[in-house]
């Protein structure tokens, strides 16, 4: 389901009626590279209802916008009960003094119209203390069942105007939905909004499915399936659910696939005669190439954003560690150097960090390091944390955590890579192996 949004900039640009005034201070800006940010207080009054009957939608949209922002840990919502005044119409002049008085630094004013199955959401963002609008007002319009996406788009704009970076709220995550006891667990692929809403299933549970990976374009998903009795890689079209098996060289098991940034290449592990190496298949030509040749285990490859290098996991040193090689293979260089065992490296979409799973002293951690292995930081700790995936803007990681014992179940969490803010992502059943797709258009 692709929603098309009408974005109206010009019509709203002149409506704010803001008199130019001298800035008393620096413009509002949250610098994400600062690791000790105080959450920025913001206010979102319930969106103004411009057509009768849109009351519920107006409240729901304002709520989702606020949840997106507070969920980052970067923003703090001022409760509506402390508001001194609220705008009656979208074009009312903003009573900045009333918002300054309750220390709101940012204000989001929105309005909703609903006619038939169509909904339009417009909004403006204000820097309360300077009394200025941040950027221009915008409107998103589409069918009513896409209202959550419109709310996420509003929140992405607010995030972007205050931080100067792209948001990640209007995005989706593919994952493995898990049900049943631990020794007979049923797994199927599922897709959801980044916040756990709108779960849909992509496969049935007839065979074990593992580790789906979104294409950077969001149109396809790679995953490993045991439907033939042996693990093989499938390419699934998200729109049609059509799927086909990835062509590989002969080998009894193919698994751990990942797309290149342009979506044209797939790198993965192939096992032959008990040994696992990394291979690449070109989706256009069907040609495959062997990238590592070692008697050790080589798995979990991930491309750098520019496609020139691959980070992967190998136990050639005796324990699993992280290595980087050229995209065409060649001699790898080890980058992990701490104690413990490292796995599942994933290159950040910004190119600056590599996320990984680390086992140390009976605990599992999700961590990040620079691409040369320096500045390692562990972000989480539990008995089993695994499988990091990056938000499209490279500021947040999602992963899964499995609880202990016979009743142990897996759940999804997200964590801010600089501040460590941890957030559970609600899912209707157990959930593992998240893969975060791109920001939607």
């Amino acid at each position, binding site marked *: 389901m692709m929603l098309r949004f009408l974005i109206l900039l010009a019509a709203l640009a002149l409506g704010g009626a803001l008199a130019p005034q001298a800035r008393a201070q620096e413009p509002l800006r949250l610098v994400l590279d600062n690791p000790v940010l105080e959450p920025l207080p913001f206010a979102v009054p319930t969106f103004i209802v411009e057509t009768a009957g849109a009351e519920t939608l107006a409240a729901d949209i304002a709520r989702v916008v606020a949840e997106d922002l507070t969920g980052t840990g970067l923003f703090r919502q001022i409760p509506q009960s402390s508001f001194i005044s609220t705008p009656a119409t979208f074009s009312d002049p903003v009573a900045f003094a009333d918002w300054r008085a309750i220390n709101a630094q940012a204000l989001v004013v929105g309005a909703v119209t609903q006619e038939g199955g169509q909904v339009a959401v417009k909004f403006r963002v204000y820097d309360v203390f300077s009394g200025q609008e941040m950027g221009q007002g915008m409107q998103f319009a589409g069918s009513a069942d896409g209202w959550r996406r419109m709310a996420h788009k509003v929140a992405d704009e607010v995030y972007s105007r205050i931080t100067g970076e792209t948001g990640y709220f209007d995005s989706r995550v593919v994952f493995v939905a898990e049900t049943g006891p*631990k*020794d007979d667990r049923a797994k199927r692929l599922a897709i959801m909004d980044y916040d756990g809403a709108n779960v849909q299933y992509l496969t049935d549970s007839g065979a074990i499915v593992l580790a789906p990976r979104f294409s950077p374009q969001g149109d396809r998903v790679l995953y490993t399936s045991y439907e033939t009795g*042996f693990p093989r890689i499938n390419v699934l079209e998200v729109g049609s659910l059509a799927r086909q098996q990835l062509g590989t060289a002969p080998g009894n098991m193919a698994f751990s696939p990942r797309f290149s940034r342009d979506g044209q290449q797939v790198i993965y592990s192939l096992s032959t005669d*008990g040994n696992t190496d990394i291979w690449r298949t070109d989706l256009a030509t069907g040609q495959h190439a062997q990238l590592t040749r070692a008697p050790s*285990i080589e798995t979990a490859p991930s491309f750098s954003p520019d496609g020139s290098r691959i980070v992967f996991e190998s136990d050639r040193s005796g324990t699993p560690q992280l290595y980087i090689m050229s995209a065409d293979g060649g001699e790898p260089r080890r980058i992990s150097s701490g104690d413990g065992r490292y796995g599942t490296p994933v290159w950040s979409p910004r190119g600056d960090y590599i996320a990984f799973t680390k086992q140390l002293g009976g605990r599992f951690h999700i961590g990040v390091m620079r691409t040369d292995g320096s500045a390692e930081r562990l972000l989480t700790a539990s008995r089993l944390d695994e499988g990091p995936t990056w938000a499209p803007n490279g500021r947040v990681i999602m992963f899964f955590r499995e609880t202990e*014992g016979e009743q142990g179940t897996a759940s999804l969490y997200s964590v801010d890579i600089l501040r460590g803010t941890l957030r559970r992502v609600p899912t209707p059943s157990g959930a593992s192996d998240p893969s975060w797709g791109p920001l939607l258009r």
Partner: protein
Amino acid sequence: MNMMTKAALLIAGLGLAACTNPGRFDDANGVDVNGDGANAGIDSTTLDPAGDPRSPAYFNQTVGNRVLFAVDQSTLTDEAMQVLDGQAQWLQTNADYIAVIEGHADEQGTREYNIALGERRANAVRQYLVSQGVPAGRLQTVSYGKERPIATCSNESCYAQNRRAVTIISLGVTG
């Protein structure tokens, strides 16, 4: 247990029962000519006694269909080799059986690494069986990593049971 194994048990069982205990079949079971869901209502254990050294049950229970591994290891212990000697002998005697060796890992490791580790274990078993004279073409390997634990607690007593390679036999043609 996969469908092929179920079918093999059933066929083996029928062959045996035909001369020893025909009265055990009733009409309800007898008319299922398509073989669809043919196991419903049939107690294959009764028809396939572990006492018969040619039976899959004998292989699974008396010879032993699984071997265990130490943490992170794929090397065979003396005890494992003893079990595999028995498996090799049985497979050579019963030449119409093929086997898939399933490798498994405990939950202390990432999904991807454990799949590769389970494959290493399955292959260690396969190599050993081949070295003892079982034709390589009758032996396949597959790894489930940590996807199919048989013991579900989260401590070493369960982990030790899950670090295993299981030889699953079935009637079949050499691949």
